[in-house]
């Protein structure tokens, strides 16, 4: 699944967002539309009023005064109704919203106040907040039809401060029936004034996903590379609960988190009694993770017993458990019922050993980058 491409930008200085159309449409409706064409030469179409034009062929200077990206490598993936953004500096054409996908996200910022050893999308220290907020607010206006589900991700969305509140207010007003799930490290919610403002937005369908990697604060802080992060996240979780937010705890499985996994599970049961969902996630072999593999790597087959023990603790407590990103041939069969296929549609694949596997249809497969470091337990499950 392709989400970006690039060409040569002309006639604009700020990013332009619009909804893809592939056929000319009446003038009065063009304000929000980006017309995608193979070339401008054939019929010399009327280009007035479109937000922008994307052309796969080459277009000379002066052919139009509208914002334009030409010589675009691929345009087949740009389907009608998709929301895309074109960028002036590098001619990037990014797909931001696909109404036919269940995996749409609002990317809040590349910045983060943590620096997790296994981060799959390492933070970047640049001030992108204002520009990305502007883009996201515009994106919300353009989404059509509206999504059932939307994920706010980053970076760390709470670093947006008031901008985050603006985005949530816009979602609340424009698409109140969309389930919005925000991935955050939860640290900022330790400050009760921020949490109160966040809650005061009154978004009707907002839930949060917050990672917790150890019941030992020191280990958690080390994993996320931030002192006091554990205390802040725990206090943040309590503050959020006080305001009635539904939060999912997310645990990435690696050598450092697996060591005390059942203690962490007990900790969640007794100290975070308002938590109803816990997700265990196999580590992705991308971003920072390859750099820290000496410390992080454990073959998933070697932590199955501890994982099962942890799942049992949580499930006995009535907590809903899900396991993501672990192939069924590696995951203990007693845990298959918790396995969910959540790897986004644009990144999961299967490898050779999966051919003819009896449970391939039920299995989440791999992120393509994870095929580089595989469990020794990987095998084809024969039909029974």
């Amino acid at each position, binding site marked *: 699944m392709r989400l970006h491409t690039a060409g040569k930008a002309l006639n604009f200085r700020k990013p332009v967002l619009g909804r893809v159309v592939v056929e000319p449409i009446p003038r009065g409706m063009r304000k929000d539309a980006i017309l995608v064409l193979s070339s401008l030469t054939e019929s010399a179409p009327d280009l007035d009023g479109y937000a922008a034009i994307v052309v796969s062929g080459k277009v000379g200077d002066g052919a139009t005064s509208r914002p334009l990206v030409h010589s675009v490598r691929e345009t087949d993936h740009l389907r009608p109704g998709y929301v895309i953004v074109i960028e002036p500096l590098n001619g990037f054409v990014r797909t931001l919203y696909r109404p036919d996908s269940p995996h749409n996200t609002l990317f809040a910022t590349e910045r983060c106040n943590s620096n997790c050893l296994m981060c799959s999308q390492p933070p970047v220290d640049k001030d992108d907040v204002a520009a990305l907020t502007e883009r996201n607010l515009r994106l919300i206006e353009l989404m059509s039809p509206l999504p059932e589900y939307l994920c706010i991700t980053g970076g760390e969305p709470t670093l947006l401060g008031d901008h985050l509140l603006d985005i949530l207010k816009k979602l609340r007003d424009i698409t109140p029936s969309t389930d919005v799930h925000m991935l955050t490290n939860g640290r900022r919610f330790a400050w009760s004034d921020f949490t109160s403002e966040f809650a005061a937005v009154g978004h009707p369908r907002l839930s949060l996903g917050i990672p917790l990697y150890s019941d030992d604060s020191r280990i958690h802080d080390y994993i996320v590379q931030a002192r006091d992060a554990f205390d802040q996240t725990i206090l943040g979780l309590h503050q959020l609960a006080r305001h009635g937010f539904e939060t999912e705890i997310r645990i990435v499985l690696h050598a450092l988190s697996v060591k005390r996994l059942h203690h962490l599970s007990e900790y969640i049961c007794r100290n975070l009694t308002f938590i109803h969902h816990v997700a265990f996630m196999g580590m992705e072999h991308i971003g920072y993770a390859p750099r820290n593999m000496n410390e992080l790597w454990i073959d998933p087959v070697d932590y199955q017993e501890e994982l099962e023990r942890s799942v049992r603790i949580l499930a*006995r407590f009535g907590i809903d458990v899900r396991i993501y990103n672990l192939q069924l041939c590696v995951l203990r069969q007693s845990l298959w019922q918790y396995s969910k296929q959540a790897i986004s549609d644009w990144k999961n694949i299967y490898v050779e050993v999966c051919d003819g596997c009896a449970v391939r249809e039920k299995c989440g497969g791999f992120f393509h980058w994870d095929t580089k470091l595989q469990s020794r337990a990987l095998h084809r499950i024969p039909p029974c």
Partner: protein
Amino acid sequence: MARSFLPISDFGLSKSYRLLPFRFRRLTNEEEILVNECGEFLAVPAGTAARVIRKQLSPNDSLYATLKAKHFLYDDYSSPLLDVLAAKYRTKFDFIHGSTKLHIFVVTLRCDHSCHYCQVSRQTVTKGEFDMSREVASAAVDRMLESPSPHITLELQGGEPLLAFDTIKYIVSIAKSGAAQRSKELDIVITSNLAFLTDEILEYCRSESIKLSTSLDGPDFIHNSNRPRPEGNSYQLAIEGIKRARRALGFSQVAALMTTTQLSLQHPMEIVDEYVRQSFHTIFLRPISPYGFALKSAHKTGYEMQAFLDFYRAGLSHIFELNRKGYNLVEIYTKILLQKILMPEGTGYVDLQSPCGAGLNVLVYNYDGDVYATDESRMLAEMHDHTFKLGNVLTHTRAQLFTSPAFVALIQAGCNQSLPGCSDCAYQPYCGADPVYHHATQGDMYGHRAWSGFCTRNMSTIDHIFSLLLKGDDDIQDILWAWVNDCNLTEMRAGLPQ
């Protein structure tokens, strides 16, 4: 601009630690249990408590991290999270919130049964002067509704309350309209032997959504012997009553309680099987209360607590077998203790609370308007011991009842956190305080734990539950967790790794 990573040594280890309140108990020669202020426990090798207390743990020990996370100790890096301990403590004691929830009305002392263990001096069926008057009923309903609790349970009992059905109807009507005016939820239960259950009464209970609670002591030879009637048919009447009531009101609207007598002690299996035969899914293996006629007729009912505990363990193990075979049956006392041990919340069970449930979570209004802290204190009064009489609904306000010398004395002796023998007991967070029991049995509300039946029962029961939790096989564990989760074993297992 790639960031660099900090080594683990940059994340500080405390040089010393301090203890948070916790208690401990040797379970076996090899194992002891540590229990913190909120009831979280940790089974550890014998000698661990001493090491912890003597500050011999290293911050690098895995046990150190576990004890810190579970709030047994704190160090230089813990301070923000002590708030979490406070939140846990608040959760555990939430049962205090709202004050008195259970209000028992003794609508009449009249009864047709002459049970050996009866806790009151029964009156003959026709003596109207032992019925609650309208004036008393009205004032008692006022006191009940003055309780701040938004959710109130009204229990109508006797004697045999159905002998005073008109009084019941009057109380229910004024209680319902009063509760509606104050926007309180009201549950109503009638505790009856069901001997006088007519179609009219059943139709009334159905239309008013009133539940029925009755006694079932076991199969006929036990029930009839424990609960004599002139006709010798109390078992038959109870069973017929249960069936008719279930048909009229719905299965879940009818509950049964058993009391253990000397005779019962010999027959744990038969008693449990009787509950299965009658399709009950809960059973409460309850020792006799050392009050009322039970003390007088000790030759027929009295026994040592140790004998009861043997009975309880035998019954419980039979109950586990039934659950294993697919019949869902919950032993209520075990379930209550499990909730206290395994769950962050407290329970609403008044006999195992500290501060004691007496008065704080239950009040009893006698037929004559006298207010008692518990049903047991009312029984003492029937034996001319008025120690726990808080006042009378006709002459005392709610504030006066709760500042009466009787209530103040009760509460002073009603916190196991400060009772000798309890304050340093590992099971204190799971247990309660029962000043009424200790007054009745030892003549001293504070009591001495060494010869307290209350203490013996709870220490042994909790020891037994821990042995099941720590050593029980997978089936036992799953059954115990199913009880805590209000589901059956099959449902419980469906949610677990298998």
